[in-house]
């Protein structure tokens, strides 16, 4: 952290202190957060993104649609399949093909497993920045159960490259159904223990309740997405509002909380883990038989397409222009974290500096995903 004391007194006659949090991950992730304080109160906060910008949108134009898959996954490797799904849906829309029903279910299965692992990863970081080391260890340990399931399904632990145009690369392996049911039930039991040790712990609730308030109107006005929006009481989820893949046939709730503070945003994510566990069990029981992959050409026909999915951090959308070659002419790729950048300042301003980690990490802003 570097700090600058302003030489000129502010309007109220007091001097302010400007602090750079980050970009070398001193609690901000890989980005810089410029915070101006009056005493202990944050009076201005401005995110300074771009530290991990890698120009992926240009890279997508230089590779064919299959070679793009591993690169599409890189911005958020813990939530890889959701980003990949958005891209593949845009490609399929242009090619005019649709994946078989079994593939749609398998895509949803991997997406939900990714949502759980992403939320558990967030929970461990959130825990450690609040000084709760047990909450750092437990979610990462339990995440292993789901990561292991992903490995059984796709052959890779995190960057799966599983969803391809025309379907998915592998079928459901033997024994996966029983294993998925057992592990999700175990995870739900563990979530009750998380509640006891962390979410109902007075030390945590005192630090999170009423901290980093974001009203419903402000969240809508600034275009927040994902659990950060649902924590403010807005019932918006792409899986429900614009259903894709197998979601129209699945039964699940959109988890919202009304308070709009750090606690509400955290609990919206925990509720989502529970819903995802139920969804995984539904998918493995309902999955139809049939082929899991259809032949698809390695070509992007001339035209434009737009697709959006609900990734772990909010709505992720892809706008694709094809010119008839095997590479995209242009691929615009917007992720949930990029949209949530607008709510960083209103969440932090007015709070204490000591509350900054709570409010900041409750947004689950992922700089790599936002900078792309």
């Amino acid at each position: 952290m570097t700090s600058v004391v302003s030489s000129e007194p502010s309007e109220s006659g007091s001097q302010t202190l400007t602090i750079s949090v980050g970009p070398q991950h001193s609690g901000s992730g890989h980005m810089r957060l410029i915070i101006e304080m009056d005493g202990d109160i944050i009076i201005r906060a401005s995110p300074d993104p771009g530290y991990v910008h890698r120009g992926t949108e240009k890279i997508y134009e230089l590779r064919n649609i299959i070679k793009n898959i591993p690169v599409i996954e890189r911005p958020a490797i813990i939530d890889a399949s959701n980003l990949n799904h958005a891209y593949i849906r845009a490609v399929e829309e242009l090619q005019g093909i649709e994946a078989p029903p079994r593939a749609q279910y398998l895509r949803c299965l991997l997406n939900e497993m990714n949502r759980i692992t992403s939320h558990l990863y967030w929970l461990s970081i959130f825990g450690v920045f609040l000084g709760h080391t047990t909450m750092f260890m437990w979610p990462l340990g339990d995440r292993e159960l789901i990561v292991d399931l992903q490995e059984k399904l796709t052959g890779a632990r995190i960057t799966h490259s599983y969803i391809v145009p025309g379907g998915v690369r592998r079928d459901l392996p033997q024994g996966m159904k029983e294993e998925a049911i057992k592990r999700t039930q175990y995870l739900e039991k563990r979530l009750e223990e998380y509640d006891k040790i962390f979410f109902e712990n007075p030390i945590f609730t005192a630090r999170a309740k009423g901290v980093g308030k974001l009203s419903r109107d402000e969240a809508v006005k600034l275009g927040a997405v994902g659990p950060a929006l649902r924590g403010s009481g807005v019932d918006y989820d792409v899986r429900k509002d614009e259903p894709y893949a197998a979601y129209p046939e699945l039964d699940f709730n959109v988890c919202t909380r009304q308070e709009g503070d750090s606690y509400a945003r955290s609990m919206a994510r925990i509720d989502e883990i529970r819903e995802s566990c139920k969804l995984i069990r539904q998918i493995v029981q309902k999955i139809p038989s049939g082929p899991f992959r259809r032949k698809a050409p390695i070509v992007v026909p001339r035209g434009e397409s737009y697709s959006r999915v609900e990734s772990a951090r909010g709505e992720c959308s892809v706008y694709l222009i094809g010119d008839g070659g095997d590479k995209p002419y242009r691929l615009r790729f917007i992720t949930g974290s990029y949209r949530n950048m607008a709510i960083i300042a209103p969440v932090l301003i007015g709070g204490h500096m000591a509350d900054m980690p709570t409010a900041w990490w409750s947004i689950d802003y992922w700089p790599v995903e936002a900078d792309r």
Partner: protein
Amino acid sequence: MTVKGSIKAVADIWTAYYSGLRHLFHRSYTLRFPEQRLVVEKGYRGRHLLHLDRCTGCGICAWICPEKCITIVPRGERWYPQYFYGRCCFCHFCTDYCPEYALEETVEFDLAEYTRDRLVWSPERLARPPAGKNDKYVFSVETSRGASNIPRVGAKPEK
């Protein structure tokens, strides 16, 4: 804070302590790699196995490789792929796209080397089947205790 509130806070903090302390008697999540390692099942996308007899040297693997880690090198009259594992992202699109099924995924994943040259795998080296590691203790992820030791057939359980 009211008296009732204080009592509830003390009770909640005690519950938090208790639920953490109970886990003192559980097995640890962490494994002592490389003596202990997780079971890696068939289908895991580790390093490649090349079947020299099936490979025609067509170069589709090198064309589809997103990281450009495959070079097609001559061996007498024939051509074979050579991998540079410093770049490989283990997507295994090469295995998927091989028309002759000459490539296969193996469970070998610990490919770290001391020099950069050793990361280049020649066709002959790729054709060698993965050497069986002398795994003393093999573990599997288990729901009852997080990661715990389920001995694989033939492996001794840890005392």
